[in-house]
């Protein structure tokens, strides 16, 4: 009896293990189109141009070289372009966090006449893709003489439509804070600014992280706006610069382009792997609540 039970249990285990192996196998196969491009980008950037098109393709560079990386800096002011992307993304992210948490707090916690109408105005920014307003915005900045400067990107991204989702997320977060915390602070004679900064903001870490992550990613990846507003290579941002690595005939220099692409993608990817829990939760929160 006992022996038979053991046998039954064993075969049950085996079929379960078998199913589990199949499951992992299916996941591994499905992950190929998600993982391969990034892997291919990194290893190809280390290959000499002759090896890039080797047939059959190799999964590891036989003669690794940093040639593409060196050329990336020689052919364009890549360090400058890197700095442009970095400072624009950081500045807009910081500005958005400030503006969105102020507005989000007021919409959630303060009562003032016309509040709903103003919130509706802000919501319009959420519904209108920036592509719709790009033509008039170009003309406005053209009249102001701000084309071929970073101002249009900095101003529109921080104050305009891209920051609305952040305000929305902050509002949702502040709505969920217990009101008693603030009432105690008011009795102690704190003003609104102090309550916002000293009571509400320190508790808003998770919402602020969500705002920071998606704002940074959004601005880091911006492509249409820089393409429209910027003309000089030394003002370019990274996504724009990546497409300009071509030879005299307009042919793509793959090793240089992939090296530059790797340098653009890898830092964010590394930060993501290190802080992936916050990333995924933050983005899930921004999506769910936004």
């Amino acid at each position, binding site marked *: 009896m006992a022996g038979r039970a053991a046998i039954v249990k064993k075969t049950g285990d085996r079929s379960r293990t078998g199913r589990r192996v199949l499951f992992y196998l299916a996941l591994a196969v499905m992950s190929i189109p*998600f993982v391969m*491009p990034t892997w291919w980008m990194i290893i190809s950037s280390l290959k000499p141009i002759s090896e890039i*098109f080797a047939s*059959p393709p190799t999964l590891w560079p036989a003669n690794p070289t940093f040639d593409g990386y060196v050329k990336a800096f020689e052919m364009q002011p890549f360090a400058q372009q890197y700095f442009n992307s970095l400072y624009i993304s950081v500045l807009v992210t910081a500005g958005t966090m400030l503006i969105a948490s102020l507005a989000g707090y007021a919409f959630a916690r303060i009562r003032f006449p016309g509040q709903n109408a103003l919130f509706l105005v802000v919501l319009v920014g959420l519904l209108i893709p920036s*592509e719709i307003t*790009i033509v*008039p915005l170009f003309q406005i900045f053209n009249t102001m003489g701000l084309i071929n400067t970073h101002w249009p990107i900095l101003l529109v991204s921080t104050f305009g439509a891209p920051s609305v989702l952040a305000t929305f997320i902050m509002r949702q977060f502040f709505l969920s804070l217990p009101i008693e915390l603030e009432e105690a602070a008011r009795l102690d004679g704190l003003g609104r600014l102090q309550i916002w900064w000293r009571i509400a903001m320190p508790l808003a870490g998770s919402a602020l992280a969500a705002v920071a992550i998606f704002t940074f990613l959004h601005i880091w*990846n911006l492509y249409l706006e820089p393409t429209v507003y910027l003309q000089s290579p030394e003002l370019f941002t990274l996504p724009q610069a990546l497409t300009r690595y071509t030879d005299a005939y307009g042919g*793509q220099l793959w090793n240089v382009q992939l090296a530059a692409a790797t340098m653009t993608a890898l830092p964010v990817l590394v930060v*993501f792997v290190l802080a992936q829990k916050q990333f995924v939760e933050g983005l899930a929160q921004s999506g769910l609540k936004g």
Partner: protein
Amino acid sequence: MTTLIKSPAGRASARPGGRRPLTHLQRDALAGYLFVAPQVLGIAAFVLVPLALVIYFSFHEWNVLANTFTFVGVANFERFLGDPQVAPVMRTTGIFSVALVFFNISLALLLAVMLNRSLAGITFFRTLFFSPVVVSLVAWTIVWGFLFQDNGGVNGALELVGVDGPNWLREGPTAMAAVVIVQVFKNVGLNMVLFLAALQGVPQELQEAARMDGAGPRTIFTRIVIPLISPTILLTFIITIVGSLQVFAQIAVLTQGGPGISTTVLVYYLFQQAFLFGEFGYGSVLSLVLFLIVLVLTVVQWQLRKKWVFYEN
């Protein structure tokens, strides 16, 4: 001097109903206005004013070279109606959006269901599927462009299974497929995470109760899980549809709208007309069309919400 400056203020405060110190509520309201001011003014300046200007510009012609700006009435709208490119551009936009939404949401849901269990290494796989979301869009598109070349990695992989692949980016239908593929794998992770969060909110007891009543996995999924996560499905639907209308970088980098105009979606056409050909008036008409599409989609989705969403917390 001192008295001159002081006296009006002194008189004002002495007058009944004059400048008394603000009440608690007034001060609060003032704080409210100041707090929302940067955001509200930003939306006014960079969304509402441009929106009004789009309408204004659409009745004008802008000659960039001659630097003239003339009223042309509805000429730009007539041009839109007579433009032989409009029908194919609209069709391309529609096909792209439908294909993207279909593949993105079904793949995201499939992955979320597969990854919604506590097995060893499941977090690792979640990370893998999510990783393209954080890879720079243009970098991602460039490497796919590299893979989609005639002698590139995609055809190399197809060769392994004995298929002679097409020259992806040089033929209309496959170029379209390529753009959809690039976009689907880039952003599925985002929808997957939203679905995972929703699935984790589905009470286990409900599923177990149904199982006891003899319901199979499929019935449980379609009758219990899907209705319970329908708010999230609606949300991903909206995000993905509106996002699909905005696709630009992938087209600009992969195909420049070609071959022919087979991958020219509305946003790319708008960019071409306004910024490559300097047709700002006509570009404004195209912006208005995009605006109307987004508006209609938003209203329709809002209406559908009542029928669709079985459960909302």
